[in-house]
């Protein structure tokens, strides 16, 4: 499972202030810190307070790229802001995200084709998030068919089954796992899967433990990526260990260090 580092987000006070003051220090510090900790993408989100999302996105992309060679996941519901950021990305980026809705899918997949970007597709539509796995998978299938029509490789489509906090949507858990399993059967090669990991523990005590347990269980169901706290050492250790147990990496005594260094 690859980790998409979640920390460069205007919702966090230090990043919010950095954006406001155009002071790159905090952004660059987190870019480096997450890379060293084991992140393979950096999520970039201007946050809800942004007055001019496109300009803020451009600035974040530029300063993050000065500090880190990791590819970026541009996180916004404002597609103009995403496109402005994509134009500046030095490495193939990821668009975060699009629901299974027209005409949003058309706009996003067209953009993805143009900029050679990967896409996170959400298993939801105008009616919201379905409860059962079957409906989630049906929405995933719509994303798959649309991505295929635009010539996107399945390896570049990351489907998010959508995770709800386990204290309010406890019954969604098993459905999410089932969705992850079935998504792998939709196409060959299969599309990839992603979750926003911290959603599972919103508003709970023991947030980190819940995140870790959910991550390894989801990996066993085929989860490929998570937007998560790359600086949670124990999470990274759990993920490295799950990769060994699932025979995804070749074991050696120093496997955790190896995972941190090369993912």
């Amino acid at each position, binding site marked *: 499972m690859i980790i998409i580092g979640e920390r460069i987000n205007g919702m966090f006070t230090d990043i919010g202030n950095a954006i406001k003051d155009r002071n790159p220090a905090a952004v660059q510090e987190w870019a480096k810190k997450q890379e060293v900790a084991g992140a393979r993408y950096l999520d970039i989100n201007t946050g809800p307070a942004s007055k001019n999302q496109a300009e803020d996105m451009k600035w974040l992309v530029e300063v993050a790229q000065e500090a880190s060679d990791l590819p970026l996941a541009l996180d916004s519901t404002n597609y103009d802001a995403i496109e402005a950021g994509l134009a500046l990305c030095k490495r193939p980026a990821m668009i975060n995200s699009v629901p299974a809705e027209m005409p949003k899918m058309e706009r996003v997949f067209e953009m993805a084709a143009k900029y050679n970007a990967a896409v996170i597709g959400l298993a939801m539509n105008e009616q919201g998030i379905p409860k059962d796995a079957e409906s989630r*998978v*049906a929405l995933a*299938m*719509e994303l*798959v*068919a649309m991505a*295929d029509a635009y010539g996107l490789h399945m390896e570049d489509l990351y489907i998010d089954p959508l995770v709800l906090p386990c204290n309010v949507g406890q019954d969604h858990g098993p459905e999410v796992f089932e969705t992850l399993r079935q998504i792998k*059967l*939709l*196409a*060959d090669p*299969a599309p990839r899967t992603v979750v926003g990991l911290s959603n599972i523990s919103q508003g709970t005590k023991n947030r980190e433990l819940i995140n870790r347990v959910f991550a390894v269980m989801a990996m066993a169901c085929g989860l490929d990526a998570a937007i998560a706290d790359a600086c949670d050492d124990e999470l990274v250790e759990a993920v490295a260990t799950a990769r060994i147990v699932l025979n995804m990496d070749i074991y050696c005594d120093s496997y955790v260090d190896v995972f941190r260094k090369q993912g």
Partner: protein
Amino acid sequence: MGLTGLEIFKQLPRTNCKDCGSPTCLAFAMALANGKASLDKCPHVTDEARENLDSASAPPIKLIKVGTGDQTVELGDETELFRHDKKFYHPTAVAILVSDQEDVEAKVNQIKELEFERVGLKFITDMVVVKNDSGDADTYKAAVEKAAALTDKALVLMAEDTGVMAKALEVAAGRKPLVYAATAENYEAMTALAKDKGCPLAVRGKGLEDTAALVEKVAALGYKELVVDTGERETSKVLADLTQVRRLAVKKRFRPLGYPTIAFTSKEDPLEEAAQATVYLSKYAGVVVMKTAEKQHILPLLSWRQNLFTDPQKPIQVEAKMYGVGDVNENSPLYITTNFSLTYYIVEGEVEASKVPSYIIAVNTDGISVLTAWAAGKLTGESIAAAMKKAEVEEKLAHKKVVIPGHVAVLSGSVEESTGGWEVLVGPREAAGIPKYAKANFA
């Protein structure tokens, strides 16, 4: 694995007409993928799409049988690219070429002598290829008839003139030989012949893509008992083609190449020929055809085949018996190990390196290593004593000392007890310590 939703969706009309009862073609594709609907519900699906969907449930590489009786050769039906992913199922058939212009009887008899005993196993070659070099139908027919009379091995008939082939099949069709080959020039008549006689047919194209196209033409004539030859003869190009055929069949379910392959060596020097055949055997050839029939040229290739096609999940075993290493006599030391081949050969190598001629008893532990066998109760005082008794140690040795592996030192007492008073010596924990141990104790 069945088809994915996307693959099915692409075969549907994509009109969302709802005639099947599903709201969209996409939903119907999903229902099909999950086995919750039948394709019959869609009145608009084309015949071509239906066939594509039907064939998807067949194995990626078709199983083809050549020959009859005990010596029937099974080819294909492989599912892996690497043996460590699961295993390879049907060992590459090794075939030897006989020309109708040489002394057929002499060569076939030479081929029959290619039977080897090693490590308790018997290795044989599988097929005899009779090639029409003379261009003459009667000469060829006589050669085929003679070969068929001399050996029960599966036959490959190699003639491109359909008239020549027809005549040879008069005497050999009952042996279900592989008919080689349908080509762009003769495929209609050759396919009709093979189909009529119920014999498997090799299809030879000119390169990968051309071969795939030719196979489709043959299949369109209603015959699918096929073996493919892409026509390449240069080592690296054959390697590339064999790899592509396997990948396209297994990973892409590409039907026109979903058959076993046949590869021919092109080298004249028999050592170079054997090396070339080793490449093809390592990388996916269903049949490899050789010209040399000398024992020393064939034994190494058959040994490699035996190694490569063992099941990686299943340990290979040596015969559970007593082995003499070096010039042994009644005073030679006696070591105990298990019959897991890797364990045994490591111990044997180290005993040999110790330069002290010794006996080794490989105790039958169903091919598992010392510690595992001990934990599983398969290496015990009783099993060791039984193996010693079977090896008649009391008669063969003038001493009563036995060395057990250091890892199972705890068995000392029970071995002593079960053997009725043999002195048990505890050897080193790792085989690498044997030379030092032997020097200290037996030199």
